[in-house]
């Protein structure tokens, strides 16, 4: 069944040929799974996985005031980036809530490349244009001209190495470069959303299908699998990487979401600074914590969290965690319930089910 109203990535035919189960993901026709979420999840942790993330949004910020605009909208400091370096950052409203979280790539002193969430692309572009008023800068949405593949897992480097002469070992975490992969000029960064080593590869859409097929073919001996959005979510969740709409939203600040290290309050004026400084001074009224179930049950997004019969917060993400074989969750609670080992309850179908606060990330790869 094909829903003609849904947007398609350049790899739609590949997904269908591989027998993926397709879903409507924020208006995109995307693969949620191929062989199965658990098998795909384990392949990325133990071997390698290939993701189509072409739905992600890409925006160029160019011109003499490029850095001024970027640093005005983000909470992290792009002024500290070196050429070909990347940072992760929230982007806030004046009241401290989050517009989106994104990656900023420094292409040149007057050129930054921003990678944003698919469902927020239009909103982010408009936000950037609005904030660019009075600045000597051009904002260009290049999402439609950009395909993106993510190759993740301990075997990612050896698989990608079969398709390029570039010295991949020299490409460090959160750095990028431009080079040929299977003869096609790509922008390749050592980044990802899984908690594993790996790469994100940006290239023109017309070459995406060929490269997708090629990576799966050369990675076959190493056990590579195509990975859908289902496992992408369980992988990022175990690594405590936030998902916009769950751990982040216009109603949640980066400080509440535990992203304080990406908020540079000593930086010159930026959107949300005043509100965030105030929040830090006054203290948080809620905090993101990780927890594991003590009693039987799986926490799910929006389930209430309780203690002593009173509601104390809500679950932002919850799932069976394949790498841990446990049922775990992330949720927002009043700070007095945030200490490790605090017993809380997840309200599942009207019943309080015992859980306890544990440290995050739930999963961390061995260095």
């Amino acid at each position, binding site marked *: 069944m094909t829903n003609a109203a849904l947007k398609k990535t350049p790899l739609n035919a590949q997904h269908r040929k591989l027998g993926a189960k397709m879903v409507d993901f924020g208006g995109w026709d995307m693969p949620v799974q191929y062989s199965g979420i658990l098998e795909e999840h384990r392949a990325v942790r133990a071997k390698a996985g290939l993701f189509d993330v072409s739905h992600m949004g890409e925006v160029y910020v160019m011109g003499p005031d490029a850095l001024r605009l970027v640093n005005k909208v983000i909470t992290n400091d792009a002024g500290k980036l070196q050429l070909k370096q990347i940072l992760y950052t929230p982007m806030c409203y004046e009241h401290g809530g989050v517009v989106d979280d994104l990656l900023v790539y420094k292409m040149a002193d007057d050129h930054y490349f921003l990678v944003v969430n698919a469902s927020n692309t239009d909103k982010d572009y408009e936000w950037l244009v609005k904030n660019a008023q009075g600045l000597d800068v051009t904002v260009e949405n290049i999402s439609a001209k950009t395909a993106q593949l993510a190759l993740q897992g301990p075997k990612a480097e050896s698989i990608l190495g079969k398709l390029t002469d570039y010295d991949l070992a020299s490409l460090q975490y959160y750095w990028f470069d431009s080079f040929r992969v299977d003869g096609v000029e790509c922008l390749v960064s050592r980044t990802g959303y899984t908690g594993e080593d790996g790469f994100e590869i940006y290239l023109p859409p017309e070459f995406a299908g060929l490269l997708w097929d090629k990576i799966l073919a050369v990675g076959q001996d190493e056990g590579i699998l195509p990975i859908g959005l*289902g496992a992408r979510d369980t992988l990022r969740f175990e690594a405590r990487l936030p998902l916009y709409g769950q751990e982040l939203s216009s109603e949640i600040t980066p400080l509440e979401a535990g992203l304080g290290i990406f908020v540079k309050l000593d930086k010159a004026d930026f959107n949300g600074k005043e509100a965030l400084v105030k929040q830090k001074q006054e203290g948080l009224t809620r905090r993101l914590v990780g927890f594991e179930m003590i009693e*039987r049950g*799986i926490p799910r997004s929006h389930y209430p969290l309780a203690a002593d019969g009173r509601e104390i917060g809500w679950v932002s993400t919850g799932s*069976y965690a394949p790498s841990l074989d446990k049922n775990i969750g992330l949720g927002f609670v009043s700070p007095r319930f945030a200490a490790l080992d605090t017993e809380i309850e997840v309200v599942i179908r009207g019943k309080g089910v015992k859980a306890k606060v544990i440290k995050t990330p739930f999963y961390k790869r061995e260095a």
Partner: protein
Amino acid sequence: MTNPRDLKYTKEHEWARIEGNRVTVGITHYAQEALGDVVFVELPGVGDKIIEGEAFGTVESVKSVSDLYAPVSGEVVEVNDNVLDSPETVNTDPYGAAWMIVVEIADPTEVDKLLSAEQYEEFLAEQD
């Protein structure tokens, strides 16, 4: 996979094996495939009463939560603890090891409403 001919079925994708007044209940191959990897099952306890057409338990995959609907009314007389401990058997053996409960039915005529394997497969064909 074909659905066993000796079982009865519901439109909510449960199966029922009827042996006198004892009815064993599980979910169908179609249901487990639609769910994906099953990671959690919640069932009533022995002695609980269940009512035809109403939820008696829950089955959860990595991404979804679904109610289990009772094909018949009666008292739960056996619960499969193995399926609680190893929910993945719902995917691997839905008609065998992943049986869920045994119900003792009060009204034997209730089973007449259930679908035969052929009727269930016709129903599935209409869904696609």
